[in-house]
């Protein structure tokens, strides 16, 4: 849908709106009262249709605002519905989760942090605050006094391992429960899933998170605009280039600043190096989950030179702290370029070998094809992004749809696979590594001379959205300024926040042995989602993570036996 058609469609609901604000061609705000927000959102999602990005709750002194951000991916246009809740005593708004499952988590989150009641929400349990967080204290309300004293109700003797909060769904004792997580070996993050099973088949999945919730959005309000990139790069270690980039995209849009050309190219190079090391990391972990530890070791070995390059450019293997509002902090030294090209050549060969090994291996085909399938309809309903969406045939990529940095000047392909299973997602990631290498080569070739930053004096009052394509999908940042030197609201939506809930669509009906790889297939990042998982000492936990890993590996071994292992020769590597 082009911009004109979109504008025509939007004028159909004019009677439900207070006003339409158009800041730029592709940034539209629809202002409405809380009681009309359901109808407006339903119209945007079902009739237009637009992709749901996230919602932002804001305490703006005299009222609450809920911002529903939608994206039209053909033009890169953001359509934001701004609903005003005037009643500060009992703030309430109708939930949009019944027709839009992607909004379920974010409405729970807004309920936790702002105390807004979403009527008709299917599952209003606590999401991101701790079990012992007091009821009725909402950290993102401006009048809440922080820090809050937390009552540690842990008895002195044997501790309660099972969470007592209402957030933990009461489990029917008749059905066996499989707890996956939380502190489990060789996975760098904890994650906790509660699977209800019938024999070998998973019938329900539930998640409890909050373990990694650090309250970054609130901390951000205490930092100056120029300090925030250091904070947001620490949202997630692996996306530590994309989060600051999405943030500066928003602030630069707000301030009307365009960074110099060289800075745009440096940003592209650093972001693509990040994508390469993140995807290789995933390939390694994926291999580990299905019992191919050699792949794990190889992929992580190939990743090291990329980290070394990043260290040479920015001074750190991760957490680069390289982008700032108006440009970059560190330049790519021209002397480094021959070395980068050499390393890229080596890496390309290795990645091609890995890709060939995956595509040609009958065992991997048998093990991953048709497993953990996320259909295109579910991908749209859960509003997934990144390789998870592209592996399900949804061709979205912020780099192409809403180009930032220097992506518009470069030539590359968006990799899409229609099948939606784990195999498709693995293929998408492997081919994206090759595309990333292509992008970096072009960026190095075109790298213009000149300064890498412009001075930014003031951030004017206003609001803006910024996004960037992180390795896991679209990273979205919303920044509002009152003209001071600190943001008054900064909302972060990391890709895993929408990718993780899609497990409900991809895991149910699967064999238990396939669950670990299905869960891993979206490359979940819990520090991004600001949450982690829990020890669950439920009496009828029948299997822990290690047992699941064992099951998964046994299945691979069985398939191997049945079809025989392909003979690989040393020369192939």
């Amino acid at each position, binding site marked *: 849908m082009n911009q004109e058609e979109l504008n025509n469609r939007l004028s159909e609901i004019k009677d439900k709106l207070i006003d339409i604000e158009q800041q730029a061609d592709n940034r539209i705000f629809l202002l409405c009262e809380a009681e009309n927000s359901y109808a407006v959102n339903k119209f945007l999602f079902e009739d237009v249709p637009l992709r749901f990005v996230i919602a932002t709750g804001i305490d703006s002194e005299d009222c609450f605002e809920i911002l529903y951000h939608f994206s039209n991916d053909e033009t890169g246009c953001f359509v934001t519905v701004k609903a005003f809740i005037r009643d500060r005593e009992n703030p309430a708004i109708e939930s949009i989760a019944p027709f839009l499952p992607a909004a379920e988590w974010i409405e729970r989150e807004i309920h936790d942090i702002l105390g807004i009641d979403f009527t008709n929400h299917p599952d209003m349990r606590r999401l991101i*605050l701790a079990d012992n967080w007091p009821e009725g204290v909402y950290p993102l309300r401006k009048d809440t006094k922080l820090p809050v004293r937390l009552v540690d109700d842990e008895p002195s003797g044997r501790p309660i391992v099972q969470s007592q909060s209402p957030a933990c769904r009461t489990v029917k004792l008749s059905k066996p429960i499989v707890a996956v997580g939380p502190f489990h070996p060789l996975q760098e993050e904890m994650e906790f899933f509660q699977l209800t099973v019938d024999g070998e088949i998973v019938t329900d999945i539930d998640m409890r998170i909050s373990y*990694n919730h650090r309250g970054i959005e609130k901390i951000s309000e205490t930092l100056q605009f120029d300090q925030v990139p250091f904070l947001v790069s620490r949202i997630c270690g692996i996306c530590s280039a994309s989060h600051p980039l999405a943030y500066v995209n928003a602030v630069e849009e707000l301030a009307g600043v365009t960074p110099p050309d060289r800075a745009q190219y440096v940003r592209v190079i650093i972001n693509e190096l990040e994508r390469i090391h993140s995807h290789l990391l995933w390939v390694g972990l994926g291999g580990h989950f299905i019992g191919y530890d050699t792949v794990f070791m190889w992929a992580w070995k190939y990743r090291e030179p990329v980290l070394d390059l990043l260290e040479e450019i920015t001074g750190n293997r991760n*957490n680069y702290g390289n982008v700032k509002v108006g440009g970059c902090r560190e330049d790519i030294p021209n002397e480094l370029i021959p070395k980068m090209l050499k390393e890229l050549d080596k890496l390309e060969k290795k990645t091609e070998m890995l890709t060939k090994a995956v595509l040609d291996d009958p065992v991997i085909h048998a093990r991953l094809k048709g497993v953990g399938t996320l259909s295109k309809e579910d991908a749209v309903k859960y509003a997934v992004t990144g390789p998870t969406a592209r592996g399900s045939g949804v061709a979205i990529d912020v780099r192409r749809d809403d180009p930032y940095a220097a992506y518009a000047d470069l030539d590359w392909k968006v990799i899409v696979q229609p099948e939606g299973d784990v195999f498709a997602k693995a293929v998408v990631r492997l081919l994206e590594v090759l595309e990333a290498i292509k992008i970096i080569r072009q960026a190095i070739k075109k790298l213009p001379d000149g300064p890498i930053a412009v001075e930014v004096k003031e951030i004017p009052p206003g609001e803006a959205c910024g996004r960037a394509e992180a390795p896991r999908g679209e990273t979205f940042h919303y920044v509002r300024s009152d003209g001071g030197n600190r943001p008054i609201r900064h909302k972060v939506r990391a890709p895993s926040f929408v990718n993780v809930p899609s497990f409900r669509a991809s895991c149910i009906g699967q064999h238990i042995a396939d669950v670990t790889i299905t869960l891993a297939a979206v490359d979940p990042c819990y520090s991004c989602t600001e949450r982690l998982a829990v020890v669950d000492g439920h009496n009828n936990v029948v299997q822990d993570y290690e047992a699941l890993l064992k099951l998964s590996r046994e299945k691979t071994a069985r398939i191997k036996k049945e079809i025989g292992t392909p003979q690989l020769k040393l020369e192939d590597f």
Partner: protein
Amino acid sequence: MSWKIWSLKKSVWVFHVNTGACNNCDIEIVNLLTPKFDVERFGMKLVGSPRHADALLVTGAVTAQAAPRLREVYRQTSKPCVVFAIGACACGTGIFKSGYHIVGPVDKIIREIDPNAIIAYVPGCPPKPEAMISGVVKALSVL
């Protein structure tokens, strides 16, 4: 040196606890196992249960929800157990100091249940894998 400490220092088995880290220190810990660093040549190994562990590698600033679980994991380890606070957050909550959901740092939470706990610190954001190896070696050599 008691025989317990003596036996602890040979081939340390470690258990990794993430208490609200940004994933960076955690990735670097997993990196220790991979070919470039390969700590298994020193007999060090990541294990799947705190009950098998001689040392805990704790990352993250300790969120309110993670604190009771960290204490529980520490209780489950066999003593003596060396706690390594890996990274700036674990050592002193770092950039997340003012966060409303942060109750750390790690040493405070561990000392609440064991005032005599052996705690070593490896600062950095994230510490390089070489720094982690060096930290472990230094801590074990002063025990």
